[in-house]
């Protein structure tokens, strides 16, 4: 069993491909973009922290230098920013001046957190540095340090006054990042969806619809022979396909008409030929009978007046007319195979063999032949009379072309083969040279003279015609001096109608 591949509509296939490709590209692009923008977001965040810390440094520098807490309190402008967690103001030696939000009840100043020490080291090692940025180890915070310079008038040399520290909440960054990712994902999804819809629609209109139309036209043409639509005006691959299909359909239509005409002509010619053969052979017998009758009359009335030579000539005439009659009869029966055809029926080949044995009783007895069917023969669907003729011809040949040193022994066997029956008629006769395997089946073709073996040479031609009329095949296998086996195939079974017998 070879199973047909599953039918997947083109539209679905194209849609799947488009969805896959667009989704993959969209996803890759989004990932790239989000990754890129995440870095931007982080950079913006750091930038903001640095800016805030630098502004704070400016705000509190006067307050630190003048030890004025009112001025230091300007730092509260910074703490109002929602992402600022804590703001610290230190003097030059990291003495904490103030912390915002202001903490009540503070006791001893806590030990310096590591980041402040790190910042101190950082600023100590690079005195030009303005700010320093670190992630706080203690929590999700980003800590920005900036130096405070005191410069009360614009051309004064800036004096170190202290440091400020701004803690920015990581949450703000995370929120910004999340928001950014969400926005871009949504945008990408929307964009991909629109792209997909657009592409699918375009492909549907441009490719699938014309193809479907073509498919429908082809189907209509195949089923009902409806004429294909005129070729389209648009020139593209589908248009070409449509044009070619239309051309092809016209060609097929023309060929069909031609073939139909040829067939009819052939049939008529065949009928005429068969009619001719039948009529000819039938009508040829009439003058032959006249010749034969008058020769006999001549012999009876004038026999004494004819000398021995004349009588010999007359015997030749009689014999020739007899042979001619035989030939005509054979030709007649050959043509009757078609003209006098009868509908097929179930034929039991065992009965046919029995009948043929009865018909050939004298020949069998004369030659002491043995006809053997080791297993029962099947029933085939065929024309009973023709089956009899077929087996009778084959068996006659098998007995007739015998070897002189042993009596003929004929075995008939049957075998199932590819839904047909293959029958074999094997003899132990003289056999046939391989080069004559084809020739023996031709009409009036003989390998031996009439004196050696009697017959007209039409038997096997009739056999072949019978088998071929039953949609079978007839052939021979033989070894000269050992015997021949004639094979033929016949349609099997009673159940199915025999196709072979239709005229």
């Amino acid at each position: 069993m070879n199973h047909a591949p599953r039918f997947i509509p083109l539209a679905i296939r194209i849609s799947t491909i488009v969805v896959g490709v667009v989704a993959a590209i969209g996803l890759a692009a989004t990932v790239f973009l989000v990754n890129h923008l995440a870095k931007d977001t982080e950079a913006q965040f750091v930038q903001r922290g640095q800016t805030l810390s630098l502004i704070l440094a400016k705000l509190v520098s006067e307050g630190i230098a003048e030890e004025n807490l009112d001025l230091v309190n300007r730092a509260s402008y910074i703490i109002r920013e929602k992402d600022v967690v804590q703001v610290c103001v230190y003097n030059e030696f990291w003495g904490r001046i103030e912390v915002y939000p202001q903490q009540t009840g503070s006791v001893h100043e806590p030990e310096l957190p590591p980041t402040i020490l790190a910042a101190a080291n950082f600023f100590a090692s690079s005195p030009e540095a303005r700010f320093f940025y670190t992630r706080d180890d203690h929590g999700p915070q980003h800590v920005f340090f900036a130096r405070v310079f005191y410069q009360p008038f614009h051309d004064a040399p800036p004096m170190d006054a202290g440091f400020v520290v701004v803690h920015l909440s990581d949450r703000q960054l995370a929120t910004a990042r999340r928001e950014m990712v969400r926005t871009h994902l949504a945008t990408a999804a929307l964009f991909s969806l629109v792209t997909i819809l657009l592409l699918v629609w375009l492909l549907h209109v441009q490719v699938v619809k014309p193809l479907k139309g073509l498919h429908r036209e082809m189907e209509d043409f195949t089923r009902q022979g409806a004429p294909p639509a005129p070729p389209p005006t648009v020139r593209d691959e589908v248009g070409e396909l449509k044009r070619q299909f239309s051309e092809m359909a016209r060609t097929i239509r023309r060929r069909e008409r031609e073939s139909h005409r040829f067939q009819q002509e052939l049939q008529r010619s065949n009928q005429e030929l068969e009619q001719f053969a039948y009529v000819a052979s039938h009508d040829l017998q009439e003058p032959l009978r006249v010749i034969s009758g008058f020769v006999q009359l001549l012999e009876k009335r004038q026999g004494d007046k004819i000398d021995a030579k004349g009588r010999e000539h007359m015997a030749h005439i009689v014999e020739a007319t007899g042979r001619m009659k035989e030939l005509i009869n054979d030709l007649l029966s050959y043509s009757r195979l078609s003209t006098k055809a009868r509908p097929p029926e179930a034929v039991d080949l065992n009965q046919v063999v029995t009948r043929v044995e009865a018909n050939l009783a004298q020949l069998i007895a004369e030659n002491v032949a043995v006809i053997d069917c080791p297993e029962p023969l099947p029933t085939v669907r065929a024309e009973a009379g023709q089956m009899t003729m077929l087996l009778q011809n084959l068996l006659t040949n098998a007995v007739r072309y015998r070897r002189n040193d042993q009596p003929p022994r004929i075995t008939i066997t049957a075998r199932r083969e590819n839904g047909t029956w293959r029958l074999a008629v094997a003899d132990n006769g003289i056999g046939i040279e391989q080069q004559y395997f084809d020739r023996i089946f031709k009409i009036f073709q003989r390998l031996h003279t009439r004196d050696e073996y009697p017959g007209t040479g039409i038997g096997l031609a009739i056999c072949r015609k019978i088998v071929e009329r039953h949609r079978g095949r007839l052939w021979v296998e033989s070894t000269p001096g050992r015997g021949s086996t004639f094979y033929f195939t016949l349609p099997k079974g009673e159940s199915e109608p025999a196709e072979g017998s239709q005229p």
Partner: protein
Amino acid sequence: MPIKPLLNPFSTPPGGLPLGRRLLLLLLLLPFFLLPAQPGGAGAAAPLYAAAHAANSPASETRPLVLRLSGCSVSRTGYLEQLSAAFTQRTGIRVLLKGGGSMTGLLTLDAEASDLAASCLPPSADHVPASVRLVPVAGDALVFVTHRDNPVGDIGLEQVREIFLGQIDNWRQLGGPDRPLAVYLQYSRHGARGSGFDNHGIPFTLQQQVLDGRPIAVAPQVFFPRPSGGLVEESVARDPDGFTVSGFTSARIRPGLKMLAIDGIAASKENISSGAYPTQLHRHLYLGLADDAAPAARRFLAFALSPEGQQLISGLGAIALHELP
């Protein structure tokens, strides 16, 4: 002075582009994935950042006619501002005056980050840098200070000792309301002496002259450290329960403060000059010069010690050198 417009450009949180612009950006960017995107907020931040950077950048050290003076808060508040103004008027040399504490002044002078240091740490303190020469410029006395609205107006030296040795922690024990004291005092974690009180002139003097050398041990629950004397005074001026020890020179003019009388003797210039105010609280205010001090610094010191300078100091209400017995 309100300073509000500064923050406005930064009120957009990071990544906060409006959705419409972001969509537009995305649509524009989509065909050019491989090109780097422009960081959104950088443009807005750049000018102000640049301004802040320019304003903060350290200028060359050789700027002429500017004297950098930093240090003792008492001196800075008490007389240095006016003295500097007079000096500038007279010489044209501008003075960059910064407080922050004696030790800060001495260390920055030592690090050549300033030209002149004000100090109330006496030269006897062994952690004064060796490169610094301290010259007394004015007289001063330790005063004990509370918030202006505090009902207590008088204190004894014994009570002072008890406060700084941790035995008194409530105003009730000083005859005031039943409220905990809030003792503000200079305390640094990174001075020449490491962490502690010794880095600062006032606690040092207090230990030497009042506590007989014993270390300060304020009860922890009422102790509020501050990095410099100015901030200590500022803090007490904002806390009705505040208490501290400071110098007469600055405490007398700091708004919101009240100087306590010692056993009935008010902390005033007259009482200090006359010797009625306990003399063990007397001390000097110094100016420190580096060995290789700039001429301008030497000029400033000379001006402060000149009769004109001393007269100016005295005229301010502070105590000139000769007024301290």
